[in-house]
Structures are given as C-alpha cells and as structure tokens.
C-alpha cells in the first residue's frame, strides 16, 4: 500500500465520517439530505477503491440518487404547512 494510496483512503474515510456526522446533526433538514447524498457518492468512491466498480455504480444510482430523491421529496413535504387531514383520521 503506497503512501498516496494510504492518503487517498484516509481522505475518503475522513470525508465519510465527517459527512455522516454533519448529515445527522445539522439544523436544516434540506442540508442534511444534501450531505447524505454527497455521503452516498463518497461511499461509491470508496467501493471503487475496494475494487467493486459495478457495485459502486449501483450504489451511486440507488444510494445517492434514489434514496436522495426520496428523502429530498419527503423533506419538502415536511416543510410545507400540512394540508388539513381528513377528520376521520383523528
């Protein structure tokens, strides 16, 4: 494991942990979801480093892309003033 490989891996792991911490504990929900999407992309990068390129592609597409979209859409839904629920629901 040459030095710069170590450097790269160290950077990726540091980025992962830093992004995870930020994503979990930022105030604003939108920012948290964006950080999570970036976290997903960095994770895909980590998997490429671990010699699993096709899975990295899947993780990028599914993890960052799809989960991100779902969470973004939900975050937007949570920020909108909620429509009056159907009375029967109470």
């Amino acid at each position, binding site marked *: 494991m040459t030095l710069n490989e170590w450097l790269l891996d160290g950077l990726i792991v540091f980025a992962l942990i830093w992004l995870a911490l930020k994503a979990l504990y930022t105030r604003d929900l939108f920012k948290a979801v964006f950080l999570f999407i970036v976290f997903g992309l960095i994770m895909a990068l980590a998997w490429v480093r671990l010699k699993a*390129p*096709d*899975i990295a*592609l*899947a993780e990028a*597409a*599914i993890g960052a*892309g*799809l989960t991100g*979209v*779902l969470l973004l*859409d*939900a975050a937007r*839904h949570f920020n909108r003033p909620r*429509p009056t*629920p*159907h009375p*029967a629901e109470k």
Partner: protein
Amino acid sequence: MDSTTECIKKPLSVLSALFAAVVCVFLAVALREIPDEPGGLTAAAAAEIPRSGVEHPVTAVLLNFRVYDTWLEVGVLLMAAMGMLLFQRRSDLRDIRLMPSPEPVLHWLVRLLFPMLVLVSGYLLWMGKFAAGGAFQAGVVLGSGGVLLWLAGHPSLTNFPGRLFRSLLIVGFLSFLLASIANMAFGQAILAFPPAYAGTIILILEAAATLSIAATVSALIIGLQPVVRDRDRAPIHVPSD
C-alpha cells in the same frame, strides 16, 4: 419513564453515545481476529462460473448461484410498492396526472433524454453478462426515465389503468416464480437453469426484473406526490387522502 422529555434527552443521549462507543470498540476487537487470506468463496465461484451461463462473477452469483436471494429481494421491492399503495390509500396512480408543462426546454429535454435513458438501461442490462451492470442498475435508470416523463406531463405511469399498473409491479417477481414452477414441473431443483441456455434464461428474468424495478422505483417517487398537482390551478379536489 414519563418525566419531561427534556431531562430524558440529556442522560439518554450520553448513555446511548457511551453504548455506541462500546459497540464500536467491541466490534473493532472482533475485527482483529478476522483472517487476512481471502477465506471467501472466490475459488469456489471461479470454478463454477463457466457452468453459470454468464462471465461476470458478480452477476453469476447474483443470478445463478444465489438467485433465491435476488428473487426475495425483488419481493422486498414489491412489498415496498404495496406499502406505498397502502399508505397513500391508492390502488393505482391515475389521480396524480400532471398538466403538460408549457416550458419548451423541459419538453425538449424529455424528448431527448428519455430514449437515451432507455438505451442506457438496455445497454446496462445486456452488459450484465460480461461486466459490471445488471437488472438493478438498469431498472433504476429506466425508473428515473419514468419519473422524468411524469414531470413533463407526458403520458406516463399515471396513465396506466389499475390492473395493468399492478401487473407491471409484479412482473419481475412473477417471472422468477414461473421459472421455479417450470423447474418443479420438470422435476429439477427450483431456480436451477440448465447450463446450455442458462444465459438466455437469466437475460429474460433480468429483463422482467428490470421492468418491474423501473415501475416500482417510479411508482415510489410519483406515488408519494400529493394528488393532482397543477402548476397554476388549485388542486381540483382532495379525496380523503
């Protein structure tokens, strides 16, 4: 346990932080004992790949050696779709149709992007045999295409009648089921693909899986949208959501 939530938060957070740290150290210690040499199944898999009908090892494992896992995984996706339909009290997506959007840019973008996405999805599906790729990547790409269609107001998943939409959701899971029933009919072990045409069977199953994954993915995104959103007009009616 019913003290005010505020004072719960402090000790609970410290406690769980401590617990998480302990778990982490405990697992790190366990890591040290894991053997370095690749104790995994690389050799076993390599030996069987010629008989699996595909070249790429991951696809071989995914769609031949452990195809039962993949089948149940498509089942989990189907369950997610059922859950979405249940929570949104819907049986299809018909009432989320969007009015066609006036902006030309979006129209042009969709007309260019959608066929390209379909092409990429097909390529990923085909490439699965030889290199990285496969049903799931292709399905997700196709699904995003479906969402794009809906965004632009083009006829998309929301135009499908109920029964067809739900059939589209189950086609992936059903294909594996039919393959198993066929196996049982011939007296073989279920999900066993004869080496001669294992490749083609896998491709068919993957295609069906791609279709239903695409439908599920776009349904999961479109289905959660509030009903009949029109860019300028107020929502026409709000059925009991």
